[in-house]
Structure formats: C-alpha cells, structure tokens
C-alpha cells in the first residue's frame, strides 16, 4: 500500500533558502519549499515560528534578507505591481475602516484592479449578500473573515494567500470557511494558507510544511507525515477472554500489549494494526465488550516534531 507522494509538477510558488530577521530576531532561517498549481498548501507551526513572515515575503509585503522567491515566475519584490494583479491576500489581523460597508469595500477593491470579478456574485458566493449594507464594525468575526476573503478574491487571482483564516471563529463558522476554501481550489486556484489548528491543516490541506523557529521541519501530505513521524497506533480492546492477551501479542507488528483487568492496550505499526486486531478477534472468536482506536494525527506529528504544542 504505497501512496504516491504529490510531487509539485508545476510550482506556482518557489521559495529557496529564505532568510529574514527583525533586528536580532531571526524570524525565518533558511526555508525552502514549492507550492504546486491547484493545491491547498498549508504552513503550520507554533506561535512565532515565522509563518506570517514567510508568507508576507512571498506576497511581496516584506523584502527577504537573502534567498530567492518566485511567484508565478515573478520576483515578489521587483515585480510587486505585476504580482498584485495575480494574487489575492488575506492578512492575519487585518482590519478595514470601521464605518465602511461590505459593498463599498468590495467595490473599492474592484476599482483598484484591472480585471475584477462581479462584486455582487462574489458577495453571493461568500454568503454576504444580506449584509452588504452593514458597516465593517458591526459584522461578526466570521462575517469579517468572509469579507476579507472576498477582498482577496476580487481580482480573480491565480494564487490566494490566507493567513490564519479561522482563528477565533466558532466551529460552524470555521467549517463554512473550509468549504469556501475548497471551493476556491475547485475553481482552479492555488491556495497557500497558514494555521496553527492541526485539524484544519489535516482536513483542508493537500500538503503541509511544518516550520518551527524559522526552520522547515518537514513537508508532505498530512497522511504521509503521520506515517513518517508517528508510525505507532494504539488499539484498546475490552474483553474478559483469558486467551486474549497472548493472542494479541502474537499479532505481527505488535510492539506491546498492556493488560489492566479486562482492558488490553495494544501498540504496533500504524499501517495494518486495526485490521490485524480485528482479524485476530475473529480468528479466536473472542467476545469483545468495547474497541477503541487511537490513531496518530497531524497533531501528534506536530508535537513529535516541534516538541510542544505552543511556544512563545
């Protein structure tokens, strides 16, 4: 069972040896990666890891200290004007004028670009039509975020950059935004996002790059990273059958079986552990009261590779 790694066939973003410091703080310390056309690419990492700095260098908002960046074949610093027409950005913690209305913002943005999309249609797509006359300051967090995404889409960009797009939103609003982002990909665009929600990265991203303290830790499809860094899965079986513990221990690939009364905790190689345990249960006709699986997720990879969940 070998999953083909997604090799970026046609990179729309190429970053090589990117370095950027603020005074004595090294924010990004030699990061290299590619983003392929049509994928959702996620940059994940703890607070202060350098996600925003990396993204803003790619967007042309900051000049790197060294390294090279190409976006759609353009240099973000030198060709920033040409690039702006072809990318859309949503910045972390961006605000608009308090008293600007939704519609006015979209119309202003549309007036700034050469080939804007229809503002009304955009508002429909993002579910903002009934709030189009509302002022920015009266919008809910989710509505603000949807408006900021709408503004990132006004110029019909080829690449969309979304920095922490669901931070501070409730689960419903978050899911609605995920659907929106999938919709952007479905329309043939490339999405480059950052998040520190592992669930978001796992569900949304085709590939993720983990960065920590300005360095790239690893890069790949979420499932691939899980296989690489967290090869161990756990299955917990509750059964009174006396022969169970020995049967479990005999399963190929199992590394440990811990018995606590009727509860058996089985650890082994993530690949086929669940199947093997079910086969074993069926083969030995073992009666089972409960089965739980604890499979590694991107969260575990994150903890494994960056050492802790949060850092400042």
């Amino acid at each position, binding site marked *: 069972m070998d999953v083909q790694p997604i090799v970026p066939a046609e990179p729309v973003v190429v970053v090589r040896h990117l370095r950027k410091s603020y005074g004595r703080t090294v924010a990004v310390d030699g990061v290299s990666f590619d983003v392929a056309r049509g994928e959702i690419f996620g940059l994940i990492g703890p607070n202060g890891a350098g996600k925003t700095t990396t993204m803003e260098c790619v*967007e042309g*908002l900051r000049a790197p200290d060294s390294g090279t960046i190409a976006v759609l074949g353009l240099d973000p610093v030198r060709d920033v*004007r040409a690039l*702006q*027409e072809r990318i859309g*950005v949503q*910045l972390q*913690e*961006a*605000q*608009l*004028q308090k*008293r*600007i209305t939704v519609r*006015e913002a979209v*119309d*202003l*943005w549309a*007036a*700034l*670009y050469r080939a804007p999309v229809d503002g009304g249609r955009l508002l429909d797509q993002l579910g903002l039509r009934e709030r189009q006359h509302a*002022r920015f300051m009266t919008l809910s967090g989710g509505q603000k975020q949807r408006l*900021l995404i709408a*503004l990132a889409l006004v110029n019909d960009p080829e690449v969309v950059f979304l920095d922490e797009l669901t931070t501070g939103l409730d689960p419903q609003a978050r899911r609605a935004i995920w659907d929106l982002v999938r919709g952007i990909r479905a329309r043939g665009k490339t999405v480059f996002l950052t998040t520190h929600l592992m669930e978001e990265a796992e569900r949304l991203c085709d590939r993720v790059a983990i960065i920590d303290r300005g360095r790239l830790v690893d890069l790949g499809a979420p499932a691939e990273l899980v296989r690489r860094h967290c090869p161990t899965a756990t299955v917990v079986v509750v059964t009174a059958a006396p022969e169970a513990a020995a049967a479990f221990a005999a399963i190929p690939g199992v590394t440990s079986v811990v018995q606590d009364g009727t509860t058996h905790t089985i650890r082994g190689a993530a690949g086929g552990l669940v199947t093997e345990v079910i086969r074993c249960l069926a083969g030995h006709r073992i009666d089972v009261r409960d089965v739980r699986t604890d499979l590694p997720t991107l969260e575990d990879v994150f903890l494994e590779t960056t050492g802790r969940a949060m850092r400042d």
Partner: protein
Amino acid sequence: MLRGLWRLTWLELRIFLREPLGVFGTVLAPVLVFLALGRLLGGRVRATDPDAADVARDLPVVVAMLVAVGAILSLVAIMAIYREGGILKRLRATPLRPATILTAHVLVKMLLSTTTLTLMAVAGRRFVPAGAEAPWLSFGVAVVFTVACVLSIGFVIASVVPTARFAQPLGALVLYPMLGLSGLFVPLDVLPPGLQFVARALPFTPAVSLLRGIWHGEGWASHTGDMAVLALVFALCVALASRVFRWE
C-alpha cells in the same frame, strides 16, 4: 498612476461623514464657536478699543490658521488609526500606493476645511463686516494653497506616529508652538532675537504672512518669497514622509 484616487477620496469622505462627532467637531463646532464669539464681542469691542480692531481685521487669517491646524491634527489621527488597525497594511497589498492614500485624505481635509471656512465667512459677515473691497477670491486661493502646503507637515507626523493615542498630543506639541511663533498673535519684532530666528524658520510664519498680506489687499508679487518657502516646505515634507512612511 493614481488609480482609485477619486473613488477612495469619495469613499473616505462618506465614511468620515458617518462619524457623527467627526462632522460636528470639524465642520460645525468651529462655525458655532465663531458665531457665539462674534455675537459676544462683535460690534462692541471694535467700537471701544482701537487695538481690537486689528484682531477683527486679522480674524479671517486667525480662523484659517486654526482650521488648518485642525485639519493637520485630524489627518494625523486618521493615519494613526489606520496604521494601528492594520488598515494601511491591508491597503498596501492592493495596487494602491501610499501617495494615493495620503492624497485622498488630504483632499477630504481640504474639502472639509474649505466648507468650514466658507460657512464661517457667510455666517460671520453680520458680526465682522469685511467691507466691499475684501479680496475674497484671492484670499480663498491663498487659503487653499496654504492649507495644502501645511498639511504636508501632517504627512511627516502621520507617517511615523505609532499609535492613535500619541497622535493628537504629539501633533499638538509640534503645531501649537509653531502657531504661537507664527506672528499671528504676537508680532515677530517683539520676540527676543533668538526666538525671532526660530520663528522665521518655522513653516507657519510664511503661511501667516501670505494670508495676512493677501487679506489686506497686497499683491501676490510681494509674497512670492512666502509662497516659495511654503512650496519648499511641501516638497521637503512630502519627500521626507515618503522616506519614513510606515505601513504598520
């Protein structure tokens, strides 16, 4: 080059007018204070005190300078709020340029200042009769020119103030001494020599000299020096502001 300028100007004007206190504070309050003072002092002061006649004679200049200072402070405050709120940073990621954003705000301030001054001129005629020979048109042109030039001082302050909370005090700290030394309230000749030197180097001094001269019927030709200095101040401030302008 200035793509989006008109739309942004129009939008910023409408957004400003939505702020109830802003409209009252910048446009209506000065007119009302002016009218109240005029009613209180108007004819009486002029009749008894010959010196007060000078104040009355210079009143349009005083008012124009105060409105200009108000416009600068307001420009500084708005830019600080936009910077602090990340609005400038978001605008930066669009094809808008800093010059366009600043120009839009300057145009809004110019429009509001002109409106205030026109209202005052119309409403104040009853209390401070200007006489038929008053050069309204020339004075109006001089005011627009002066306000545009001194607003550039606002660019520089606006380009660097980090937060909205410091914007107003810092602006006032820079502007009020300049206003005090501009020759508007105290003639420059009575100042000690050192202070006189400082006063003559400050940009409000030629502004006052120009406005006063034009208001009292002097020709433009006798104020080319003032205009040249104001234009220089404008050029220097714009150049400086574009170098130190911070988006965040």
